[in-house]
Every structure is written in C-alpha cells, then in structure tokens.
C-alpha cells in the first residue's frame, strides 16, 4: 500500500546504532515494544547523557564558583566548559552571552522580567498566534504589570506566520520586542527567522526566538538569524530536565537588571545595598543545576557527533514518509500545511477524540501526545479543542511510523 523501508533512500544516520544508545527504547509497554513518538514533549536520553550524570556524581562533584578545593575547581571547570559548548552550538559570539536557566520557560520569563523592566508604558511586544503558553503568559503578565501592549501576529490557514500582518503590527514603531517561536510545537511550522529579525530591526524592535523545538532538528546560528534573544531547553535536546539556555546579545544583558537575587549573582553585598556580578552570572542566582548543565554539554557533544545536518535530513525524510502514510488513514486530517515543517505532525480524526486515540495507541505501545499542547489560543484559531501529535527524534525509524499508521486504521475501525 505504501513504500517499504527497503525502498526508501538511505539516509546518513545509522538508526540501529543510534537506537542502541537509548536503553529505554528496549522497554515494553503493555507487552508491546515501545514506539516513542512524543519527543517534542521531551526526548529520551542516550547513554552518553545518562553516564555523564552518573559519572559526575560518582567522580567529580562539588558546588561551583565558590570552593577553594580541588573538587570544586574541577566541577566549576566542567560547568563553565558547557558555556563554551553551548556558545559554539548556537554560534554565539561570546560565552558570556550564555545564561543557564531551568528551561525555556524560565529563559523567556527572565527576558519578560528583566528586558521588560526597560520598557515604558505604551510600548508593545508582538507574539504570534501559534505560541506555546511559555511565550505567551509571561508577556501577558508583563502587560498587566508594566502597562505595555501585547500584539498578536496572526498565522495563515496553512499554519505559517502571516508576515504582511506582522509588518502592519510593526508599522507604528512602538514595538520593542518581537517574540515568536522558531518552530511550532503543534504545527511543526518553521518560521522564517531571518526575515522576521530584519523586519523587527527595521521597525526598531528586538527579536526573541523560542528555539525549544527548532534546535533539536536543525543547525542553529543566532548570528545568521539576526536574533537578539534565543531560548531552548535541554530535555528536548536529549539532555536532562532542569536545564535551559538563554542566549542574548551582551549589550542587552548588560543593560537588563537581574531576574532573581541570591548567592552567585552578586559582586558585593551589604545590608544597605548589593552590586551585581558581571553577565552571565548576574542572571544565575543560587546553586545552579550543576549535574544537569554538565550533562547538557554531553548531550550537545553527542548530537554534534552525529551532525545536525544528518539529523535534519533524517527527520525531513521521516516527516515526508509520515505525511504520506497518514494520508492513507481514513478519516484522518493532518492539521496545518506549513511551508517548512519540522518533525512534528498534529492530526485529528473524524468521530474519534484525540484522547481516545492516544489511549488506544498507548495500549499498543505507541506514545503520542494528545490535548491542546500548551497552545490553547492556537487551538481556538484552528477551531479545535485538541489534537493528537506525533513527533520524531533521531531514534525514530520508518517502521514506527508504519506501526502508527496501521494502528490508527484499526482505531478508526474500532469506533466507526
């Protein structure tokens, strides 16, 4: 009925070798082999990351930045070394522009708080209709706190950012920041970041990209994109939870007041006043996620060894294959048809609710996400309350997509 695995052109990834590095993929769920198609929510972890965390705790761990002993110095070196790894990963001009946060949500909240503190009532922030709540709610909170205006750039019916409408929103010169996703977690739409950055800059605005989904799938170059702020999270990038990244141009970080106060972010403290450490430490209060940060470095080293180009090619091929297979499922409709789609596919089925789809797929060992995907306004825009979503990672193989498509046909038959 459709292409078999053998007929498909060979891609550069050695899927079998990659899968062997993910111990969880040999688990059974409901007596079936696990088919994990929920990487956009959080990716599984390779041995390189698992071992790095355990080895850090076993052999090289102490608090950082303040210890005068050998263990502390070595751990500080490992932790700070990851700043260089991340800077290279994003092609950031300077390691000092890398701020470690808990996740992308915290990174965006940091910008909303600290860049937000520089904004004046009447200025505006533009987001899009397809933002994750993480890039929506912090701006609403800033609006209510600081009297700024929050403008929403619409998307087209296909699920692309409407650039003409964005241009109109920028026209009055009141916009201080355009904060949009680099890749939608619901539609998979990759936004034309360079174009958006150019439009924002022409209007005198800064630009922030939420790269939580994008960095996992494609090579990211913040300088080529013309970004001013860029955020991502470690756990979607095969790394641990609890570690995220904010990259921002140094001039912006220097101008912004701190986010949280505490240890490690100060220069001097008296009861009368405190002065702040230099960036990035100004934004890293308290003992950070030391083990997770070090393991994020391992995750990035691991994915770069495979190569982002090979990852991108693998996922583009899988996505095309999946769209073809899903087109054969009766009653199924893929949501959106963006110009450029990453490895994320949302779908709905006539007469079968997404939660019932997810539960029945799970009974067959297949993990997908169902719900509003933390993007309720987007769901409303699409006229839906929920979708089911399959998302792909480096370890996803065509036979898993076959299993998805075949099980969806049976689910449809079960209900209709």
């Amino acid at each position, binding site marked *: 009925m459709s292409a078999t695995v053998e007929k498909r052109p060979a891609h550069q990834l050695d899927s079998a070798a990659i899968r062997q590095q993910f111990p969880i993929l040999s688990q059974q769920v*409901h007596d*079936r082999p696990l088919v994990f198609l929920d990487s956009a929510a959080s990716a599984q972890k390779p041995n390189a990351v698992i071992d790095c965390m355990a080895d850090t705790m076993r052999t090289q761990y102490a608090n950082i930045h303040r210890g005068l002993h050998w263990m502390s110095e070595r751990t500080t070196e490992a932790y700070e070394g990851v700043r260089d790894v991340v800077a290279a990963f994003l092609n950031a001009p300077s390691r000092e522009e890398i701020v470690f946060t808990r996740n992308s949500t915290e990174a965006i909240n940091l910008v909303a708080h600290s860049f937000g503190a520089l904004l004046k009532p009447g200025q505006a922030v533009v987001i899009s209709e397809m933002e994750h709540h993480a890039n929506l709610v912090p701006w609403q909170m800033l609006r209510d706190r600081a009297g700024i205006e929050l403008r929403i750039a619409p998307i087209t019916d296909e699920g692309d950012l409407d650039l003409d409408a964005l241009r109109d929103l920028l026209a009055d010169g009141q916009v201080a920041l355009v904060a949009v996703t680099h890749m939608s977690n619901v539609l998979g739409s990759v936004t034309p970041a360079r174009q958006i950055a150019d439009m924002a800059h022409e209007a005198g605005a800064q630009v922030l990209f939420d790269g939580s989904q994008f960095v996992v799938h494609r090579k990211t170059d913040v300088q080529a994109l013309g970004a001013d702020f860029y955020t991502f999270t470690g756990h979607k990038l095969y790394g641990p939870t609890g570690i995220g990244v904010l990259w921002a141009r140094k001039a912006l970080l220097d101008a912004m007041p701190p986010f949280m106060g505490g240890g490690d972010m100060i220069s001097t403290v008296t009861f009368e006043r405190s002065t702040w450490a230099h960036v990035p430490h100004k934004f890293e209060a308290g003992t950070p996620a030391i083990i997770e940060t070090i393991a994020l470095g391992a995750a990035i080293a691991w994915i770069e060894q495979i190569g982002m180009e090979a990852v991108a090619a693998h996922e583009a091929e899988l996505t095309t294959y999946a769209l073809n297979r899903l087109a054969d499922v009766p009653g199924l409709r893929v949501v959106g048809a963006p110009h450029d789609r990453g490895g994320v596919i949302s779908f709905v089925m006539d*007469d*079968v*609710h*997404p*939660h*019932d789809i997810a*539960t*029945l797929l799970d*009974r*067959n060992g297949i993990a997908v996400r*169902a*719900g*509003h995907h933390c993007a*309720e306004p987007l*769901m409303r825009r699409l006229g839906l*309350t*929920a979708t089911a979503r399959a998302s792909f990672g480096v370890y996803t193989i065509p036979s898993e997509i076959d*299993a998805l498509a*075949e*099980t969806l046909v*049976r*689910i449809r*038959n*079960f*209900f*209709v």
Partner: protein
Amino acid sequence: MNKGVDGSALYDRLIVERARSPLFSGRLEQPDITGEGKNPLCGDKTRVELTLDQDHISLVRHHTRGCAICQAAADLMAERITGLKPAEAQTLSRQFSAMLVAADVTSASDGGTEQPFALGPLEAFAPLQAHRARIRCAELPWVALKEALSHVDV
C-alpha cells in the same frame, strides 16, 4: 500484528456504542436544574439538565463535547439516575467514584447508613482503574450533576 486494536479492556462495547449513538443527549425545554463540568486539561465540556417530579429526577439530558469515555459516562449516568431521588443520585455518584479508584464502596458512603445502589451498566467503566489519567473523563458528567443538585435541598 493482530487485526484488532488492543483497547477492548478499556473501551467496553457499551461505551463505544453510547459514545457513538447517545440516547440521552440534547436539551430540555424547561429544566428545573442544570450543571456544567469542564476539564481545562483537555477542553472537554458537559452540561447536564434535569427536571424534578416531586422529589424524583424525572428527565435527564446532557450536552457533551468530549472523548468517548466522557460521552458514554454522561449518557449512562443520565440513564441510571432517572427515577432516583437527588440524595440517591448523590450516593450513586460516590459509589461510582469509589469504583473508579477501586476503593471499598461501603467506605465511600456516610457511616454505612446509605443503601448501596447497583451500579449496573456503569460498571463498564471499572477498567479505568488502570488508566488513572482518564478517570476524570468519566467523572466529568458527575461533576456537572453535583453542581445541578447543589441547587436543591436534599
């Protein structure tokens, strides 16, 4: 792979049938009491409308937007509570919730003074015990019922 889909344990035939062809969906022209239930996690919504004849529930209709579990739960609830007194429906509600978490049904009643009711077809939802994330789907219509019954003295 087998031809069927492994879901029969959870999705009893009765649940699938009632989700597809509900018998009690719709609106009442002049309901005496109404209640709503919403699940913000999935967007499911149900509205329950009842008429009371003296002290009995005489007519029940529901308007449900949700998954198969939620749809069928609303429909089977409507069927089961028709003819009961409000207090009896509340007792049944507690028994139903207790069944979903596999708790002892008698311990869910008030000091053992309540007469337990037969859950009957509502037992089709018992397999949800192994699907905790879906229990709230089955309970949503009962949340709406509780709100409706809060308007009457029991």
